[in-house]
């Protein structure tokens, strides 16, 4: 009787926030997913901005190194990269730390996850931002230089704001990829949304209910993001005339 009753539990009971419902576990996974996605995306953007300027204005060595980075990262399947980086990055960090005379540390999986996905994101961000910077009208950059702005100030006040509107569609895609790529961290045992869903489903055998719930959560992230990026794009396009259809 008992096992049958458990299996017949309604989706609402299964998804209840507190045990024996699994809703809390799923939401915790969702929170982890968001933390990693935001962290990796921010790290990727930082790498991307430096990478894009480096590719466009850097010396030959900088450009070559960046070319190697973006080529490899974009050529190798992300899952393979994540596995490689997951085992390589902490080792590398420890080598550096020991080299500097520090103690070996155990990196929390959260930090490792963010670092690994951030490095992957950075390669794509570099390319999106490079294209966006190249699309900035050259005359406007020249006007800034002609009035004595330093390269840094020109980048900050003119090039970056102008390239933002070009970059937003690509960056929005990258953000959605970031939220989904977090699922790849399940393979290294990180308890994000996909992994939490699997645990819930495997324990209760209510696969359909839980994967449907996970799908709804991923979809919600996506829809909210679309709205948010729409607003950012509108702001970034300030000053541009709306094309009449």
């Amino acid at each position, binding site marked *: 009787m008992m096992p049958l009753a458990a299996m017949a539990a309604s989706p609402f009971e299964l998804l209840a926030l507190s045990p024996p419902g699994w809703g809390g576990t799923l939401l915790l996974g969702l929170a982890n997913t968001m933390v990693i996605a935001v962290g990796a995306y921010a790290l990727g953007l930082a790498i991307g901005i430096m990478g894009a300027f480096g590719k466009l204005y850097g010396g030959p060595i900088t450009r070559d190194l960046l070319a190697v980075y973006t080529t490899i990262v974009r050529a190798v399947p992300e899952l393979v990269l994540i596995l490689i980086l997951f085992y390589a990055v902490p080792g590398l960090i420890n080598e550096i730390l020991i080299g500097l005379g520090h103690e070996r540390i155990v990196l929390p999986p959260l930090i490792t996850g963010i670092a690994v996905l951030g490095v992957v994101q950075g390669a794509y961000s570099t390319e999106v931002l490079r294209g966006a910077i190249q699309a900035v009208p050259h*005359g406007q950059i020249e*006007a800034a230089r*002609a*009035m*004595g*702005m330093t390269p840094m100030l020109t980048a900050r006040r003119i090039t970056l704001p*102008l390239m933002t509107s070009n970059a937003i569609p690509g960056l929005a895609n990258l953000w959605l990829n970031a939220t989904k790529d977090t699922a790849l961290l399940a393979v290294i045992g990180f308890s994000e949304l996909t992994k939490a869903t699997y645990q819930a489903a495997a324990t209760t055998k209510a696969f359909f209910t839980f994967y449907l719930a996970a799908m709804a959560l991923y979809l919600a992230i996506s829809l909210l993001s679309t709205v948010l990026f729409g607003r950012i794009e509108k702001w970034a396009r300030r*000053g*541009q*005339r709306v094309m009449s259809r």
Partner: protein
Amino acid sequence: MTVTAREGKASGPRPERIRIENLHKSFGEIEVLKGVSLTACEGDVVAVIGGSGSGKSTMLRCINFLETPTSGKIIIGGEEIRMRPDGSPADRRQIEHARQHLGMVFQSFNLWSHMTILQNLIEVPVHVLKVPKDQAVAIAERLLDRVGLLAKKDAYPAYLSGGQQQRAAIARALAIEPRAMLFDEPTSALDPELVGEVLSVIRDLAAEGRTMILVTHEMKFAREVSNHVMYLYNGLVEEQGPPEQVFGAPRSERLQKFLKSLG
């Protein structure tokens, strides 16, 4: 040979603003400037004329190092810009500082499209010259009023006509209180009916004694506002002198032909 502009008009020595000595510039194999010299003192209006591809823009852009000269000297406000052997500025600070005294106006306006007209005008004063913002705004509004654009101060450039954009660009160049202005065909991108409003702003600037170097195809205007005209042919100064002479009694055959071709 260096020729000082505004022959005759000067009373006593006027400070030198821009001097170019034996300027050469090549793009790859092609030598575009083959030894050009020019001195503009305070109050000089130098008109640079010449056929397409004769090197007018290149010369102007070498003055503020938007192009790096191949050889020669650029002296801004009496200070020689130190160059590396490849012509690039040896000291980035020095050229940035010199640029802050040179207001450049481009053929295609080049207003910053993500900023309103007012923001365009206060950008460099506030962020480069460190003028207090309220002071910069006051100066900008006065300049916009002067070029007839105060009502458009909160508009974005894309919503202005070409003539309005160019007048705003001139005001932006004035906002840094430049010691000299560089104009590169400021009316060439404009519809004919918008040329007049821009020329009248430039005419006012000439009348108040601004130092300017003006690359232009508007011969009548050049004759009217300048006190020195420089005719470039194929990267060399073919003829120069006061406008009455250059336009009224050109000696060079090429210049005669050039002027005739424009009608």
